Structure formats: structure tokens, C-alpha cells
């Protein structure tokens, strides 16, 4: 066995997802007409299989394919949560797609390829592999956003996303090439070693870092690189929006870990300043603009910007606890978005998108259980104890205060209070307003309803028992610093 293939078993989950994506594609091609459920069922099996394979790799670590991919606790944990996120999207998606006549296998194939992109980003140890993963994810996402090709808003959103995404990829690639020029290597750990000899006031290094951070900020959705987010979130089919807000965020977080922490931890002070600026702008822009939104998907998009601001607080802290809390926040954010968009999915039916806040009026009378779940989701997003959202915020605040940035934490808390306004408005609308006549009946959907119940109650349960998840996040950060 040659050196390139040494430890190739570390990449088995990636290989499995790749093969299965092709299998799903073929199966759908030949069987899709007769067995419409073949693609989603196979996708679910793929995800479960991948989870099992990843589970067996827990505890191992090392690099493979000549340092292109790395296996460490972070890889395992982030991949497991990515599977979970995609699994939820699949479970939510069925009826929504059927109602709109786009229940086709391609969407699941694209989801799997996007997942593969996330996995490669998460396990990338080389600028090339990281970039490849990123583009695989991005291209799948462009296609997903414009998946409903007969919808004007969806195609417009897809195009916007594509153009701006290309620009962001360019920025990232430019930063990477500068880094390569500076250090002469593409391997992240070698870059870290080489950067020891570079003074931090080196102008090229500053450029490289800023461009890379800008690229990451675009993927995360941090202001001022967030403007695509509301339009794309609103325009894309809600199933796709649900996906956009889930696994790709874990991938974007992985970029921070792989590029900035694994590669540029020596330059912590430089990019810390950039992140402080991003955090402040994101917190203000996200939380303020969200107030004025009438469309729930748009509001959640701006709330995403705000959440990115909060999770960046943990990154600003620059400590192990900081990264762990930011990772915790990312996972919690993913769970909350899945639930939030899942709720919209559940209330939609053919010809009715249920994405205006007014559509939630009087939900407590129409479907008390859903209203209660939405209450948990909104409380969690606002950070009200005992939901897990409170813990996520508490953890990043603790980290950033421990790192000496009390003023940032104060600003964060103030903006969290402002943020509570628009989350609680949804609660108010659900419980205190009369339902609108055109809301119509709620279509029964047991699969999505059960998934949503588990998803939302998880926010409550994790809030009451946050310890294990937090320990998991700390475990993921082992060996990162």
C-alpha cells in the first residue's frame, strides 16, 4: 500500500456518502417513477449508515491521503451533527415537496452532495481539499435554491446567491493564494508552522487573513457579508431554506476551525480584531433589521445574522472554552433553525406558504400543540431559560468575559434584549391575536409533526440538561488548539 492511501479508512464516511449519493441518483433514475419514496428512504439509510461508520471512528485521529483529510474529534462530532441536520431536513421535506409537485429524487441527491461538501470542509487539512469541499457545497446549494425552476422568486434567489457566492469564493481563494505565496505550502499544519517565522505586521499576511475571514463571513452570514441571506432564505423553497440554515453553518464553522484556528492560531490577535468588528456589525444589523420584518423567513434570516454575531463572541474569546462555546452555539442554532423553518413547513399547504408572521395569528386556538412548540423555539432563539438558547448565550458570554472583553458581552446582552422583542412578537401573535380567516385548515402530516415535536422538545430538554452536549463540544475541541 502506498503512502497516499495510508489510513484511507479514516475517510470511509466520506467515501460512503459519495457512493451512496451516486446510488441514490441511479436508483431514482430507474425506480423513481414507480417508487417515489426510493430516494428519500435511501437517503435516510445513507445518513444512518454514515453515522454508524463515523461512530466507529470515534477516538481515532490522524491524517490520510497525504494530508488532504484529517480525522480528529472535531471531524467526528461535526459530521455527526451534519448527518442529524440533513436527516431532519429529509424528514421535514416530504409533504412540502409533494404539495408543490417537486417531490423528485434530485433534491435528495443534491442534499447528499452538499453534505459531502460539508464533510470534506470539516475534515479538510489542506487548502485545496477545503476549497473543494466548499465549492461542492456551494454548487449544490445554488442548484437547490433554484430547484423549483418554475418559481420566479426561487430562480432569482438562486442567481443572486450564485453571483455573490462566486464573489465570496473569489475572496477566499485570493486569501488562500496569498497564504500559499507567503508560506509555500497548502497543508494547514505546515502553514501554521511556517507562520511562526512571519511577523504579524506583514502586510501580505494581513491581506490574506482579511480575505479569508471575508470569505468565511459570507458563508456564515456575518454582516456586512450577509445581504444575500434574507433574499435567498425568503426566495428559496422552504425545505431548501431549512437546509441552508443547518448543515452548511456547521461547514462554515469548520472553516474557522480549520483555517483560522488550526492554521492561523499564531495570528490570533490579528484576526480577533477583524472578528470583533464582524461581531458588532452582525449583532446590530441582524437584531435591528429583524424588528421590521413581516415575513417570518426573512425575520429568521436576519435573526441568523444576529446569531452569527453571538457565536462569533466565542470565537473572539480565542480560548478553548470560547471555541467550544461557539461550536455549542452553532449546533444549537442549527437545531433552532431546523425547528423554526420546520414549523413553517408544517403549516404550509399547496398555494399557501405560511411564511408571514400574520399567518401565525391565533395558532394557539387552531393547533395548541404547534403553538406551544413554536413558543419553545422562539424562547430558545431569544435565549429565555430554561431553553437551550439561554445556555448557548450564557456560554459565549462566559467565554468572552473570561477573555477580558466585558464590554462586548454587555453589548451582546443589550442586543439580545432587543432581539427578544421580535421573537416574543411571534409568541404574542400566536397567543393573543385572532386567527385570520384565510389561514385555512392545517394539513395533517404525522412524520413532520413528530419530527418537529422531537426537535422542539429537544431545545427544552437540552436546556434543562445541557451538560452532555457541552461536554461533547469540549471533546470536539480537543487537540484543536
Amino acid at each position, binding site marked *: 500500500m502506498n503512502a497516499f492511501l495510508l489510513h484511507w479508512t479514516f475517510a470511509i464516511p466520506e467515501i460512503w456518502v459519495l457512493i451512496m449519493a451516486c446510488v441514490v441518483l441511479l436508483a431514482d433514475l430507474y425506480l423513481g417513477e414507480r417508487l417515489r419514496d426510493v430516494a428519500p428512504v435511501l437517503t435516510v439509510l445513507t445518513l444512518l449508515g454514515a453515522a454508524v461508520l463515523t461512530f466507529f471512528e470515534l477516538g481515532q485521529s490522524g491524517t490520510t491521503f497525504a494530508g488532504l483529510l484529517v480525522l480528529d474529534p472535531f471531524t467526528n462530532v461535526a459530521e455527526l451533527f451534519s448527518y442529524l441536520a440533513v436527516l431532519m431536513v429529509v424528514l421535514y421535506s416530504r409533504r412540502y415537496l409533494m404539495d408543490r409537485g417537486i417531490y423528485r429524487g434530485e433534491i435528495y441527491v443534491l442534499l447528499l452532495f452538499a453534505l459531502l461538501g460539508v464533510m470534506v470542509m470539516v475534515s479538510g487539512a489542506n487548502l485545496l481539499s477545503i476549497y473543494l469541499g466548499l465549492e461542492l457545497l456551494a454548487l449544490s446549494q445554488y442548484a437547490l435554491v433554484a430547484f423549483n425552476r418554475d418559481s420566479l422568486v426561487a430562480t432569482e434567489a438562486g*442567481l*443572486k446567491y450564485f*453571483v*455573490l457566492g462566486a*464573489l*465570496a469564493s473569489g*475572496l477566499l481563494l485570493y486569501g488562500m493564494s496569498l497564504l500559499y505565496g507567503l508560506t509555500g505550502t497548502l497543508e494547514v499544519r505546515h502553514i501554521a508552522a511556517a507562520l511562526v517565522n512571519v511577523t*504579524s*505586521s506583514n*502586510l501580505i499576511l*494581513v*491581506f490574506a*487573513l*482579511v*480575505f479569508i*475571514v*471575508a470569505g468565511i463571513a*459570507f458563508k456564515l452570514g456575518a*454582516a*456586512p*457579508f450577509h*445581504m*444575500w441571506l*434574507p*433574499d435567498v432564505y425568503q426566495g428559496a423553497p422552504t425545505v431548501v431554506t431549512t437546509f441552508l440554515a443547518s448543515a452548511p453553518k456547521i461547514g462554515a464553522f469548520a472553516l474557522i476551525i480549520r483555517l483560522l484556528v488550526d492554521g492561523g492560531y499564531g495570528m490570533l*490577535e*490579528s*484576526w480577533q*480584531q*477583524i472578528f470583533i*468588528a*464582524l461581531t458588532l*456589525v452582525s449583532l446590530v*444589523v441582524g437584531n*435591528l*433589521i*429583524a*424588528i*421590521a420584518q413581516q415575513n417570518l423567513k426573512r425575520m429568521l434570516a436576519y435573526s441568523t445574522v444576529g446569531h452569527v454575531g453571538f457565536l462569533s463572541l466565542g470565537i473572539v474569546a480565542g480560548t478553548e472554552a470560547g471555541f467550544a462555546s461557539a461550536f455549542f452555539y452553532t449546533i444549537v442554532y442549527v437545531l433552532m433553525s431546523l425547528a423554526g423553518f420546520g414549523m413553517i413547513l408544517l403549516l404550509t399547504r399547496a398555494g399557501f406558504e405560511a411564511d408571514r408572521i400574520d399567518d401565525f395569528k391565533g395558532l394557539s386556538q387552531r393547533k395548541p400543540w404547534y403553538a406551544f412548540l413554536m413558543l419553545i423555539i422562539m424562547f430558545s432563539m431569544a435565549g429565555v431559560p*430554561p431553553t437551550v438558547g439561554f445556555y448557548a448565550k*450564557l456560554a459565549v458570554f*462566559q467565554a468572552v468575559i473570561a477573555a477580558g472583553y466585558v464590554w462586548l458581552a454587555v453589548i451582546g446582552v443589550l442586543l439580545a434584549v*432587543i432581539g427578544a422583542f421580535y421573537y416574543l412578537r411571534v409568541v404574542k401573535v400566536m397567543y393573543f391575536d385572532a386567527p385570520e380567516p384565510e389561514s385555512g385548515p392545517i394539513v395533517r402530516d404525522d412524520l413532520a409533526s413528530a419530527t418537529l415535536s422531537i426537535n422542539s422538545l429537544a431545545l427544552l430538554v437540552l436546556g*434543562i*440538561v445541557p451538560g452532555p452536549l457541552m461536554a461533547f463540544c469540549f471533546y470536539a475541541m480537543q487537540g484543536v488548539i
Partner: protein
Amino acid sequence: MNEWLFLIPGFPLLGALLNSIFGEHFSPRQIGRMAATMPFLSTLVVFAVWMTHGRDPNLHEQVWTWISVGNFHANIGFHVDQVTLVMISIASFVGFLIHLFSQQYLNGDYGERRYYFYLNLFVGGMLILTMADNLLLLYLGWETVGLCSYALVAHWYRKQENAWAGRKAFVVTRIGDTALALAIFILFAEYHTLNYHTLFAAVAARPDLLALTIAGILVLIGAVAKSAQFPLHIWLPDSMAGPSTVSALIHAATMVTAGVYLCIRLYPIFAAVPGMLWVIGLSGAFTALYAASCGIAQVDIKRVLAYSTISQLGYMFLGVGIGAPSLGLFHLLVHACFKALLFMGAGVVILIYSDNHDIRQMGGLKKQQPFLRWTFLAGIFALAAVPVISASFYSKDAIIATAFIVPGGKLLWVLALLGAVFTAIYAFRLYFLVFEGPEKLGEPYQMGWGMKIPLGILAVASIGIGWLQFPPGWPGPKIWLPWLAPELGMPPAPSGDVNIFLQVAGSVATLIGIAIAYKAAQWEREGRGLSRIAFLFNAWFFDRIFLRIFPPIWYAFAHILDRLIEQGGFQLMLLGGLRDGFGLGSRALEAGENGLISRYASGMILGLVVLLFIAWGYLL
């Protein structure tokens, strides 16, 4: 046994959970059976604790830590010692008996699932309250039982006055809840711990008199409100609007004793402040006399028992105040048995007289309901503390006697002894009016075994449970006080001639009371009874005076706040300034995002340039 303690409150809470989730799929009858099983299972676990560790219980279970920030730890931890063991035995076993009794009593009523949900939740809350090893968890249980009390008092909410009574109970106890919360804050700020064990050690090592005084007074306010002591007793008579089973469980056997339990539990804090215990004793003795005097003039069967509960709780406070918390706990146990019995019996009486509560229109029930009569009489014996053959004689009279010999206790003794006379009067006046005299027929009512068993068990306990501790100088077992001594110490005991004098005085007080009661019942039948004394009938007019004074003051205060702070400050500032400001900022920022892709791209580039300058500027 240690790791199974959580099951004790766990079963009833599980019952409440199952009921709330799956309740609608089962009939009320099935739900009732499920609900009754839960406290029974708790009782079994408690029984196992008795069997394994009953001699000297000292169990501790740390279930889990919810929040841990700095030196603040929100621990879910349970501790079982002698005091707790008594409390959880009452809460689970009496709770079970009342669940059992409810099966027939509530049958065919409306809101049965809701009733059982709150009843289960209540038992769970009460068990948490008593088993908590720290003040925060105690407070959780404290609030839970308060909520359940509110919901169950207002159970028949379709009648306006029942809902009002529920609200009154909630609001008045709320005063105490707030005080208790403040006390917990102060104790934590001063001693940085909420765990009893470490808190008491810290208090002993470093008594800060000011903080302890304030905290002690606040805890006392909390206890007084929960246990319906003067002057915060006004909610209890009205809370009789709830079902009789609720009165038996919550307003007799368990929740109202939480205040006494709190005082016993936090005894080291009260003991550290000079004079504090005497205040508790005075409060208890006065309440005992006051409420008993009100009791003799009531005509509503449940209000008699309500005032009686207030009065009996006063004796328990007196026990704590005179440095005999173990006697207070003894009376708590005895009272839980006979008062639950009396309330359930009263519930049946009310059913027989088709929802009529007026004892003047009852009479001669002994022929129609012999079983009810004998069990009820056992409860009345215990309430009046009939010498030798009732449990109260060994608990209540012991408290009164001990009051005589402690320093500063003569006044308390006089009050308590007068209260004992009144107690005997209202107890037997009630019995004579309802069960003796000319027969007034009600509806025929057949008690099932589910009703007879609880009444029977409690009747036996009301007579016999006092024999756990015979007075000093008597032959017979003396188990109770030595068993509690490791935790609560031995109370002072009278001896010699004083002892004999005190016991004779206590017995004579009861016998005088019974004699007066016989006459009082006759007068009442003739229409010229004690109920015509408006001063006593209206409970010294306190309720009316309070309602006249405090709500208007409070409304005026709220009104001023509304005008000044809410309308003037917040509305102007927040709505006028902040909200519009945020709205403006929100729209201004959004205006930058007009959906045009060129604008977005230029925004990104602009952001990039700014970031470059920031990073560069920092490095320069």
C-alpha cells in the same frame, strides 16, 4: 436506598406528566386510578426507607446540577433525615388516602382529569419541598404547591366566588412567597450557599446578626403566609371553596404545614437571632387563641374546620417558638391525621345535605351514618385533645405544658390554654350539632370501601398515634422525642408537681370546653347561639378591615405607578424614543438592502475594505 430517593417525588410527578399528555385518551375513572397509584408507589418507597434506615435516617442523593455559575449551584439534591421522613410519610401516605377517597367523592363531577393532574403535581411538589437539600429546590416545591393550591381551590371555577377564592389564596400567599424569595437572596448574598448543611455551618461559624435578623423575619413572613397564621390567615377560610378532599390534603395535612416545616428546617437561623423564637411562639399562641375563638361562632362546617386548622397550626408554631420543634412536628403529624379525617368526613356530610354547609340545618346524623359518626368522633376527640384517649393530648398538651416552663413562656401558656378551651368548644359544638340532637334527614349516601378505608385508618391514627410519646412521668413508650433528638435535640420537659398541675390544667380546659359546647349546641338549635356574636362570627372583622384598607392602597399605588412610570416614563421613553428609534434604525439599515445584486456586491467590497483598514490599523 440512596440512589432511589428521587422516586419518591418522581412517581406523582410522572403521574401528572402522563395525565397531561395522555389524559384525554382515558376515562376519568382510569385516570383517577392511575393518579392514586402514584402516591401509593411513593408510599412504598418511603416505607422501604423506614425499613432500611428508619432508626437513624441520614440519606442523601445528589441527582444533578442544573446550573453552576461561580459559587451559585442550582442543585437537585435530596436529603432525608428524621424530620423529612415524617413529612414525606405524611405527604405520600395521607396523599394516597385522599386520592383513594377522591375516587368516589369526585365521581361524575366535571374537570376530573384536571383535578387529578393538580393533585398529583401537588403531592410531587410537596415531596420536593420537604426532601430538598437546599433552599432553591425547596422554593421550587413551595411555588409548585402554591400553584396547585390556587388551581384546586378554584377547581369549580364556574362559580364566580370559587375563582375569587382561588385568586385570594394565591395573592395572599404570594406575599409570603416574595418574602421567602428575598430571604433566600439575602442568605445567599451573605453566605454564598443555599445548601442547608453548609449554610448552617456558615451561620454557626460567622453569625451576621443583621442579615440573619432580616432573613429570619422574611422567612417567618413566608411561613406565616403559607401556614395561614395571623395576620396573613385570611385566605384559608375562603379557600374552603375547593372540594373537601383538597381542603383535607392541602389546607390541613400538608401544604399549610410547609410553613411549620420551614421553621423547623431553618431552626438554626432563628435560634441565632435573640428573641426571634419568642416572636414565633407569640405569633403561634396568639393565632391559636384567635382562630379558635373565631371557630366557636362559625356555622359553615368547613369554615369551622378552616379556623381550627389555623388555630392548630398556631400550636405548632408555638412548639417551634418555645424551643420544642420536635413537639411541633409531633403535633403536625397528629393534626395531619385527624384534620384530613375531619375534612373528608365533612365532605361526606356536605354531600348528604346536598351541598348545604350550614351546621344549624344538620342534626342527628349518627343513626343514618354510624361509620361516619364514629370516625368523625375520633377526629373530634383528637381535635379537642380529650385526655388520655386522643393523640392530641400527647402532642398539643405537651406543647402547652412546655410553654409554661420556658423563660418568658407564661403569657404564651395562658393564651394557649385559653385557646384549648375554645378548641374543645368548637370541636364538640360541631359534633353535637351535626351528629346528635333531633334528626334532620339528608339524602341517603352509601360510602364505598374507597371512602371507608381512608377514614378508618385515619380514625385509628387520630386516637393511637399519640402513644408514641407519653408525657414525662407516665408509664408507656417514649419513642418520638428520643428518635428526633439527634436532629432537633430534647425539648425541656416539666417535672414533679408542676408537671401534674400542667396536665390537670390542660385536661380541665378540654373538659370545660366540652361542657360549654354541649350548651352551645343547644343554644344554637334554639336560634340564640354563639354565631350571633358578630365580632367572632366575622373573625374579629380582620378580613373586612384588611380588604377595606390594603387593596385600595395597593390599587392607588399601582395607579400612580401606571401613570408616572408606565405612561409617563416607559411609554414616552420606550415607545416614543426607543421603539421609534429602533424602528427608524431598522428601516434605515434595511433601505440599504434593496434587493439589487450590485448593491450587495458593493456592500461586500466596502465591508472588506473597512476590515482591511481595521486589521492594518491595529497592526500599525
